[in-house]
């Protein structure tokens, strides 16, 4: 008993902090439906703000506390609710989870960007705020407890009491309790669910902030990685309360804290078992609860009778293609791929070959997400762990050189597949057996709880399995070499690319085949699928083992590319989270999505590196990019592909109608074929690129990006484009657009001129006079306004005509405007400009040349610019010849961005 009291006294403080975060988690989960995995990131952000204000800015302790916990934290919660989660109340669990995961990644990086990368040492304690000397030690019956720990307990008690009072005596509290019990009933009673959700977000964020500030001195370090793992303990605590009960959640937190304290006394501190179990205790608890507590997994079905029935996913973009486009693709695709491989095998520099090869190795892992999420409809956060199983298995069998590398890769994939199958047998089979023994059916682990189980499994595998000497062969890991025939960079690329191609075709084949259709049926409704004879158990085994096997194959390739597999650095478990967020954001259902995600993951980091920007911006971008998933659950790549295909179809219909009108002589004079305008806009950049290539080929070295050359080739196109904007704007304005649109353009010109002057006066421009700056600023300002103004005009005209769908939305201007700003920022960075103008021989620079970021961004700018021009001209044409009798395809009306704005 005495020992238990000791554990309780010494473990309770940490348990209290776990409980605080867990209570916040439960509050928002039940009131907004969002399982906010980013709570730990919010706690870290508040802790960092507190550290910054008190330590670095020397604010008084109380002021730092008030600002970070009572102002910053609720505001962060408010921001997240108002800007994001309020729009997701009816969204699927995948959308909410991915958005939360995106925040989990982005927020800590954002904090580091603002406050510096180094973890804060010796964070301040808030003990003095309640009159406790920071160095005081409390003696509780012979057990010592420090001021920091006592403070954690006191603040938790205060928070819980206040929470209880609020729940008991305030109307908001009552509403929140009611929402926790039954959100639908509460809404039927006329309660503003949005308001309740907002309050709970602010409240829970405050709790996270308080936890962040309390925890920092206990950890002694303010580090994002440490905080990230806090969320697992909080989830485990919340699981004790079945994600519903706040009192039991509090108990769960205490249990974890006390358990962590008791463990070393029970299992020891230096045995192999202790080394395994102590760091993974919260993961073990969470995994155990999810797998062995049937009531927990039944949560999803009790809340909503339709929770297991999802509508079938929308058709793939390529299914919208017409016969001509399909034929074109059949020709263009092999030519493009052949050209790509040819370039990689000849002209692309070895460094870039390596970078892109890394991307394709990663893309193989990403295809496992395509299988699991795209086909299976589930989200696994354990893909990095499966990749690690494959990588370590490959390395172990290949290490002695007795097994050829290719065979070792396959063995790695097989081992990972077996682990995947065992995993599903464990989480499904074992509980089912127990359920049968207890004569009680058990629901399969799926949805959010499956994702949490995979996360817990991945972290356990990292802490327990991959650190074992038998697996990773000690602290240095295992050295592996590529196959004999693929020692060179280009040969290695060819091998990886070939493996990727095989896996990609396999994925497509599976998607189109029986298994894919069965999985599609299963994700729609397990009961309905079972009623037509689909065996869900065997399909789940196939899904897990296939996905894990592909991840294992990719893991083997990653290990070979690096030349070694290390226990912690090669496949960190949290990479699995980054990967899933990235793939799902770009498109989990297609191979394109996986490839784009992998290339983006590799190349964007290098782009920022080359531009002299912090590479953490890339992670922030990936994290916040996940927010787009709510709007485009099919993924950005798939969305853009579908949009392009539909736009092409729309263009063909317009053209056909224009021909009809032309034949009858009724074609309005305002109609201009889109390609006429595009050609003139594109002519300059195309000629410029042609000039660069030809001149480079003739001279045998990369030709400088010279301002005169730019003036001759690109400026005429820009002048034409500017003229086109002005003429079109005037025409639209006169046809019923925004009456004072001209003033906006003038305003844009003035702001642009001022911007040019600002750049010059602040010496942000490496060269050029003030007149140059102003002359560039004016058209840039006009164009920036035009990006939004022209679509607004068109939208207004369509609205005036009573059209149900507008041909274009002002949102169309966001992308070119964003790139205009980004381009301006980059071009005015002298280092980049210098790099772009560097000359040298092919031998010195290779391909791509040293100024590749500028080339890449210029190319993207041109594409974005041309796309915008084409869309606006298409809308103008539609307004000119559309109207009665013009029937757009049904899908157009379903595109959110095309919705008419009133």
């Amino acid at each position: 008993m005495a020992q238990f009291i000791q554990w309780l006294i010494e473990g309770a403080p940490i348990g209290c902090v776990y409980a605080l975060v867990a209570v916040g988690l439960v509050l928002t989960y039940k009131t907004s439906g969002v399982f906010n995995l980013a709570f730990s990131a919010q706690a870290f952000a508040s802790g960092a703000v507190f550290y910054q204000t008190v330590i670095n800015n020397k604010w008084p302790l109380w002021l730092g506390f008030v600002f970070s916990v009572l102002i910053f934290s609720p505001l962060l919660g408010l921001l997240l609710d108002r800007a994001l989660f309020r729009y997701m109340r009816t969204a699927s669990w995948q959308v909410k989870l991915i958005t939360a995961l995106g925040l989990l990644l982005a927020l800590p990086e954002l904090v580091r960007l603002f406050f510096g990368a180094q973890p804060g040492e010796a964070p301040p304690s808030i003990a003095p705020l309640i009159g406790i000397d920071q160095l005081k030690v409390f003696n509780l019956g012979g057990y010592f407890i420090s001021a920091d720990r006592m403070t954690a307990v006191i603040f938790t008690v205060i928070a819980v009491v206040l929470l209880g009072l609020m729940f008991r005596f305030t109307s908001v509290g009552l509403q929140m309790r009611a929402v926790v019990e039954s959100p639908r009933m509460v809404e039927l009673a006329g309660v503003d669910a949005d308001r309740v959700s907002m309050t709970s977000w602010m409240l829970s964020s405050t709790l996270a902030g308080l936890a962040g500030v309390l925890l920092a001195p206990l950890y002694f370090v303010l580090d994002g990685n440490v905080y990230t793992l806090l969320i697992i303990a909080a989830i485990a605590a919340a699981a004790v309360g079945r994600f519903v009960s706040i009192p039991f959640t509090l108990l769960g937190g205490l249990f974890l804290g006390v358990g962590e304290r008791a463990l070393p006394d029970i299992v020891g501190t230096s045995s192999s078992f202790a080394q395994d179990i102590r760091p993974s205790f919260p993961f073990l608890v969470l995994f155990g609860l999810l797998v062995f507590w049937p009531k927990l997994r039944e949560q999803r079905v009790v809340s909503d009778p339709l929770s297991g029935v999802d509508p079938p996913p929308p058709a793939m973009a390529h299914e919208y293609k017409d016969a001509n486009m399909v034929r074109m693709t059949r020709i263009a695709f092999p030519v493009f791929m052949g050209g790509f491989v040819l370039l990689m095998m000849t002209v692309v520099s070895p460094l870039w070959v390596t970078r892109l090869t890394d991307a394709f190795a990663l893309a193989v892992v990403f295809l496992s997400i395509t299988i699991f999420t795209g086909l299976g409809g589930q989200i696994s956060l354990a893909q990095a762990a499966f990749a690690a199983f494959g990588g370590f298995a490959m390395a172990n069998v290949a290490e002695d050189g007795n097994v050829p590398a290719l065979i070792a890769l396959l063995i790695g994939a097989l081992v990972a597949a077996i682990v995947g199958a065992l995993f599903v047998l464990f989480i499904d089979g074992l509980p089912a057996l127990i359920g049968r023994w207890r004569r009680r059916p058990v629901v399969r682990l799926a949805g959010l709880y499956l994702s949490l189980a995979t996360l817990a499994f991945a972290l356990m595998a990292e802490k327990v399995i991959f650190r074992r000497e038998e697996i990773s062969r000690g602290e240095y890991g295992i050295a592996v070499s590529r196959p004999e025939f693929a020692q060179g960079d280009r040969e290695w690329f060819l091998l990886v690319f070939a493996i990727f191609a095989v896996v990609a075709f396999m994925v497509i084949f599976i998607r189109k085949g029986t298994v894919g259709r069965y999985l599609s049926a299963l994700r729609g409704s397990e009961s309905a699928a079972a009623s037509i004879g689909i065996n869900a158990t065997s399909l789940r085994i196939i899904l897990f083992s296939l996905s894990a096997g592909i991840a294992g194959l990719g893991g083997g390739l990653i290990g070979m590319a690096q030349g070694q597999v290390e226990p912690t650095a090669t496949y960190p478990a949290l990479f699995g989270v980054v990967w899933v967020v990235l793939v799902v954001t770009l498109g989990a259902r297609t191979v394109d999505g996986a490839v784009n995600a992998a290339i983006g993951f590799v190349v964007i980091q290098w782009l920022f590196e080359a531009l002299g920007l912090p590479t953490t911006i890339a992670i922030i971008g990936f994290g916040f990019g996940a927010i787009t998933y709510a709007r485009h659950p099919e993924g950005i790549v798939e969305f853009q592909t579908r949009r392009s295909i539909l736009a092409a179809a729309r263009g063909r219909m317009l053209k056909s109608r224009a021909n009809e009108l032309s034949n009858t002589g009724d074609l309005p004079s305002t109609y201009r074929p889109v390609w006429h305008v595009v050609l003139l806009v594109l002519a300059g950049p195309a000629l410029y690129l042609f000039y660069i290539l030809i001149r480079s080929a003739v001279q045998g070295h990369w030709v400088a990006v010279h301002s005169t050359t730019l003036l001759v080739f690109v400026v005429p196109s820009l002048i034409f484009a500017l003229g086109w904007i002005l003429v079109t704007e005037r025409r639209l304005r006169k046809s019923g657009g925004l009456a004072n649109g001209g003033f906006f353009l003038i305003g844009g010109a003035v702001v642009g001129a001022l911007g040019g002057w600002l750049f010059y006066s602040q010496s942000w421009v490496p060269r050029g006079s003030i007149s140059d700056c102003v002359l560039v600023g004016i058209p840039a300002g006009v164009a920036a306004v035009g990006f939004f103004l022209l679509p607004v005009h068109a939208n207004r005209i369509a609205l005036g005509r009573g059209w149900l769908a507008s041909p274009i939305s002002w949102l169309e201007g966001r992308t070119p405007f964003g790139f205009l700003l980004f381009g301006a920022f980059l071009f005015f960075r002298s280092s980049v400009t210098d790099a772009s103008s560097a000359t040298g021989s092919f031998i010195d620079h290779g391909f791509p040349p040293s100024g590749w970021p500028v080339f890449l961004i210029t190319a993207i700018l041109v594409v974005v610019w041309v796309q915008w021009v084409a869309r606006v001209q298409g809308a103008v044409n539609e307004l000119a010849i559309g109207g009665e009798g013009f029937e757009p395809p049904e899908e157009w009306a379903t595109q959110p961005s095309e919705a008419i704005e009133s």
Partner: protein
Amino acid sequence: MRRFIAVMVAISAVGFATVGMADAQGAGRPGVTDKEIKVGGLSSPLSLLSTPYVNGFDGVNAYFDVINKKGGVYGKKLKLVAQLDDLGSPSGNIRAVRSLVEEKKVFAVLPVMTNSFAGGSYLASKGVPTFGYNVDVNWCGTSAEGAALEAKIADGDFTGSCNRTTLFGEKGSFICFSCAAIAPAYIAKQKGYTKGALFAYTAVASRACAEGMKKSFEEFGIDMAYEDTSLEFGFSEANAGVQAIKDKGVQFVATCMDFGGAFKISQGLHQAGVNDVAFYAPEGYRDSTIKKYGAQLDNWFFSLGFFPWQAKNQPAGTKAYLKAMKQRGISPSEQSQAGWINANLFVDGLKAAGKDFTRQSVVDAINSFTDFTAGGMVPPQDWSKNGHGPDVEACAAYVEVVKGKFVPRFGKPSQPFVCFPDNPRPANLNDPYYRPLKAGETAPTLAGS
């Protein structure tokens, strides 16, 4: 249309094949012009253990400034043109290393400040002179080669050597985590401690370090009263250890942790009313820690591989380094000093290689150095013999925190390095010799030297 595409592909193929042939041609002295010698380095700014790796760049830049003010080397200025971030991952490290060599076209790579130097094999294969902060087996060879060397040492065989002879760590290119570490045992012996405790993380390198310390404690008769190797970085729970230390009367705690982890344990002890336990931490000797924690660190010991900054009669190298850091307004740190030592070795190598230096000649020149000390900052490094292999002697300087200040310990005036032969191991720790040797003094004959 098809014909057009076919023609375009053919043209591209011919054009690019020509370019490809050009690409395959060789190059001269990369990164060297009439006016400058370009080098580039990398670090892990987000190192997990909060080690300030990025400080290495300060050391290199400071040393280059000193040299450039004197006219550079052969009239060429030294320029650190790239400071890349390897993101702390092996793949990031490989890509950063290749970017330095293939994109930035540097002549040499320095400093490499990371705990996962997976790009080492690439740099070695390309013969690029590389300098950095050695905390990883990749400075020596593959993981298997490193493990084999450690196994040989465990068997008493010190004859092995590293394969990567173009890589130069600031304390030699071979580091043996699991070898018996003399420093903590020596401190315990000097202070008369008989009961020790050991704390380490579950991270493999930390556990290997703990193995080395255990061996040392056993070898020199210090009772290991308590051992905790099951802590995780950022741990919040060390009460069990605190209680055990108190109960078992431990006098000395050795850690294989970053400074923060070790300090957290010491705080726990203080809070439990245990104030007389001495601490040994392998990391944390920097001005910033003493400024921040002052007397809270009293009775802490650090072992250093370089001349202590507080010792009297500082050698020229230490004086110059401290002066340069002061001028730049930077607090001295082990990492920035490592960068300084790296830059010093590189410049010495350039000078020794002659005016028409190449990468290979610089490497050869350095590998002929028998007594490199960076102006007295470090014990002599013999790059011709054991710089790329197991040490033949174990030399360390010691400091203790007394009244909130670092105070050199155990050495002699002007001779702060306390040395023992490492091959064969000393029977006891009673009879050290001291470096730098004074005129007339001789070191014992070392088997590997």
